[in-house]
């Protein structure tokens, strides 16, 4: 049987498609079948056009309207559920949005779901990390409708454009529900820096930085030199050095940049879970036995208060 695959996209705050969709495309290619892309949001005008030009897809579904602007799980389920059974597989990125609505849809459709896949073995067998990534489980999902969130860092984005724009089908915007409403948003933007998800280089700081002022003063200039995003360990976030959305790890974001620089981070397994598939890892830590050195390609033992400014200065030259 030919698979019918639906990829559910996400838009960035700028209204453009997030690049994670191209990773979903790569994952979907392993499944072999027709691929549709669902774009949703308060205003999807530019994202729909971008989606129409993705390579190898059949059509774009467009769910646009005020009730979808906030990305509430209840509304996304109302949008996707009427179409769900037309598909054999529905994939979305394992973001705080995807992880929020997809399990809800799974229960409504009475199917088990597979979280955070990092590999596709066949159209019903997937690999997913468990125990903070210490273990990989190979899981068979015999459900007729397979719902999956995808760890997008595990799938390099499909490049290129389709030859002709594919057709668009407009979906009815679901009616408002009373159960939940969004009453405030506190967006955190790293001014002038790439986002953690897309950065080629990530500079991450931990408890060793000692204070919020040090975190900014030491890591900011280094990040700017490297055009890097800033990340943090849980300890650094808990202590208020950095904002929650830059926490890297089992319960934060998973990143896999070309270069990850861990500064004053000990390397707890929960932190490693979020960065150990980076291409090159550098660690700066004063403790030569810190576990971070076990995963670092290049380790530098010493005081970060000396080494980080020295590194920034050397890069400037």
């Amino acid at each position, binding site marked *: 049987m030919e698979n019918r695959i639906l990829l559910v996209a996400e838009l960035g*705050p700028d209204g453009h498609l997030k690049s994670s969709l191209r990773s979903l495309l790569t994952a979907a290619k392993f499944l072999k079948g027709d691929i549709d892309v669902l774009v949703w949001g308060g205003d999807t005008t530019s994202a729909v056009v971008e989606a129409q030009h993705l390579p190898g897809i059949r059509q774009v579904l467009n769910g646009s309207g005020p009730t979808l602007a906030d990305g*509430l*799980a*209840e509304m996304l389920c109302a949008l996707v559920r009427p179409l769900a059974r037309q598909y054999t597989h529905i994939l979305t990125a394992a*973001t*705080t*949005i995807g*992880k*929020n*609505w997809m*399990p*809800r849809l*799974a*229960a*409504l459709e*009475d199917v*088990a*779901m*597979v*979280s955070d896949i990092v590999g596709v073995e066949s159209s019903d*067998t997937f690999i997913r990390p*468990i*125990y*903070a990534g*210490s*273990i*990989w*489980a*190979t*899981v*068979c*999902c*015999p*459900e007729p409708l397979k719902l999956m969130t995808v760890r997008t860092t595990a799938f390099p984005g499909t490049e290129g454009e389709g030859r002709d724009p594919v057709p668009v089908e407009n979906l009815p915007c679901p009616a408002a529900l009373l*159960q*939940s409403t*969004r*009453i405030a*948003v506190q967006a*955190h933007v790293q001014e002038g820096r790439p986002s953690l998800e897309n950065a080629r280089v990530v500079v991450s700081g931990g408890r060793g930085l000692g204070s919020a002022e040090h975190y900014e003063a030491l890591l900011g200039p280094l990040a700017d030199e490297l055009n890097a995003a800033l990340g943090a360990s*849980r300890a650094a976030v*808990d202590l208020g050095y950095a*904002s*929650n*959305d830059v926490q890297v790890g*089992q*319960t934060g974001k998973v990143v896999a940049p070309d*270069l990850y620089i861990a500064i004053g981070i000990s390397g707890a*397994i929960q932190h490693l879970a979020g960065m150990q598939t980076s291409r090159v*890892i550098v660690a700066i830590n004063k403790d*030569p036995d810190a576990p971070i050195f*076990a*995963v*670092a*390609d*290049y*380790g*530098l*033992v010493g005081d970060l208060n000396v080494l980080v400014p020295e*590194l920034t200065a050397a890069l400037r030259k």
Partner: protein
Amino acid sequence: MKILVPVKRVLDYTIKARAKADGSGVELAGLKMSLNPFDEIALEAAIRLKEVGQATEVVALSCGDAMVQEGLRTALALGADRALWVSSTEELQPLSVAKLLHAVVLREIPTLVICGKQAIDDDANQTGQMLAALLNWGQATNAAEIQVGEGRVDVVRETDGGTETLRLILPAVITTDLRLNEPRYATLPNIMKARKKPIETLTPEELGVTVEPRLKTLRVQEPPQRPAGVKVDSIATLLARLKNEAKVI
């Protein structure tokens, strides 16, 4: 207001999990088990709501084999008023757990269910959302702040872009993130007292739920290890190697 807190006993977070040599599962024999850290946070949130007079009763619930009673004892020692054990030796996947929780909710009629956002063993991050769906209740995952008002609850949730505040009509399901609170420790007298408290036992049959694992774990293995790296002795060497060897800058 009654609050139900589902808790799971998991491998302690300080222990690195290992796959069994034959790949059939994760080695758990003889290792330290603890309450899922997110569930401790959920319990703490519920207990604090009771302490400020917004909740009347905190009921802890765990599904699994006889060992999960240990987790319930911890919950009682921390301040849960009652404990329910849904006894099952089956492999309980999130959908099954959600169905069991759903059946218990219909009996207990809580106004709020507070779950952990994920269990740190299977890392599924599904159960709370599934429960909310089965109940047709509103949901707020990754809670960093909970404010209960008249007939509603405002939840600040952590998102990939910062935070957002949702207003849910009660009853509702909330799942906890790390920064919601810092859980207390159980005191020795409370641990002793908790040993004597009754744990009410239920079975999936009594609850009318068929527990069936739908997903099949074919094998587990440890992921490919990164080859060991090197320590460099200066910034100059580091930069030279990043340029010439790793070619990342």
